[in-house]
């Protein structure tokens, strides 16, 4: 039932297949030498870990503990406790469980005060599962570690509905 392939074409075609792989022998390899050479990360890259930003002028943390990100998170890994003093809300404790995070950037989009932001550096692999639970101190410390990513709540929202 196999269809008969004429012999002359057979020879031409096997040479074609061989020539096809030979062509790649002389092309430059495409490999990125990872530990030495890093692949250029695009501007909107969102594969990194998280940070809680602090306001540049007033040196206060931006997060007002409004729990919007906790409600929007598909896998429910954000747990925020709010406390009120000094006329505005603060996040008493902010736990982001990186074990179950989808990296879908909905929390960054929802945040009214650009508090939670993704970074250009990714979380290093860990040997203990509990190290992936980022509590408030770690999130605040992360901000200095890597450069903040492009996406902030404000930018995503006006991309979403450009102010006239």
């Amino acid at each position, binding site marked *: 039932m*196999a269809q008969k392939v004429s012999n002359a074409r057979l020879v031409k075609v096997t040479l074609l297949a*061989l020539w096809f*792989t*030979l062509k*790649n*022998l002389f092309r430059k*390899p495409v*490999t990125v*030498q990872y530990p030495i050479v890093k692949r250029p990360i695009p501007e909107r890259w969102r594969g990194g870990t998280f940070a809680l930003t602090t306001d540049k002028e007033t040196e206060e943390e931006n997060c007002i503990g409004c729990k919007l990100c906790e409600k929007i998170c598909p896998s429910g890994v954000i747990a925020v406790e709010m406390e009120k003093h000094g006329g505005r809300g603060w996040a008493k404790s902010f736990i982001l469980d990186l074990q179950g995070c989808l990296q879908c950037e909905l929390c960054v989009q929802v945040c009214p005060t650009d508090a939670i932001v993704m970074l250009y550096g990714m979380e290093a692999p860990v040997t203990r599962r509990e190290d992936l639970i980022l509590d408030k101190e770690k999130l605040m410390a992360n901000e200095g570690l890597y450069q903040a990513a492009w996406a902030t709540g404000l930018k995503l929202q006006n991309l979403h509905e450009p102010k006239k």
Partner: protein
Amino acid sequence: MTSTENIAQGIILLGAILLIVTYLTWLERKFAARLQSRIGPYWVGRPHGWLQPIADALKLLIKEDITPSKSDRFLFNLAPVWVVVTSLLGFAFLPLTASWVLVNIDLGLLYFSAIGSLIVIGIFIAGWASNNKYALISALRAAAQVVAYEVPLLLSLLVPAVFAGSLDFQDIIRAQDGHWFILFPVVGQISFLTFLLAALAEGNRIPFDLSEAESELVAGFNVEYSGMKFAYFYLAEYVHLLAASLLVSILFLGGPLGPFFSGGVWVAIKTLLVFLGVLWIRWSFLRVRIDQLMMLNWKVLTPLTLVNLLLAGLWVSLNG
């Protein structure tokens, strides 16, 4: 040569072959990587992974050696040894340089083809003893394939013997002086190609690697083998391939004969080129199905080699 000298040379030859073969695995991974536009082993020995084969061999040495409880213990452990020994035997009679051969007998070709068929018994024992359905199917496939391809292998081997008029490697090399057997108008090329195809099928190499078909039979007959036993199979495959490419370079490409290099260097260059050719075929063809393999053998290769042998005989008898 006295017997003690012979044994010493034998041991040196064994060590040399095993070292060459480990570095052939490195060459294969680098060459395959370049074909697929990537970089092969790089980090293990700093410049281009020169320590990679040593690491692989050492790791396989340290690995825990599992013998499945329900498998036939004696046969299971015999198979890898059998396969390595039979594939190494071939080197005893192949002339590696113009003058030097370990054991000089005048029926070298006949001896080599006899050894070639012993390997499949090892593979069959491995497949049978590891009491695993995949291994059983692969063992049956290997037996069918190697026995079938024995016929075109022998017939295409005889053509150089007919041209040189003897089965001894030295005479074959002398007969090729100035006129390699591959350069014969029609007969040479056909026997070279059929011998190469049959050697590929004999060594279970792509496009005929049906017995350790990755995508169908997981890992073929060495499914149950781990650690050093698996290393034996892995090694035996390359040793067999090296022997086949060495044979090709001697029978068809005039072995040690060559303009300005000495004999041994020419043999090495030609074998390396044939080995790279086999690798090149390996990494650019898909696998043939079992019935097509058999159909190709009985309907195409065997009649072709028979006619080829007839032509060679006629040619020799015509002009003496």
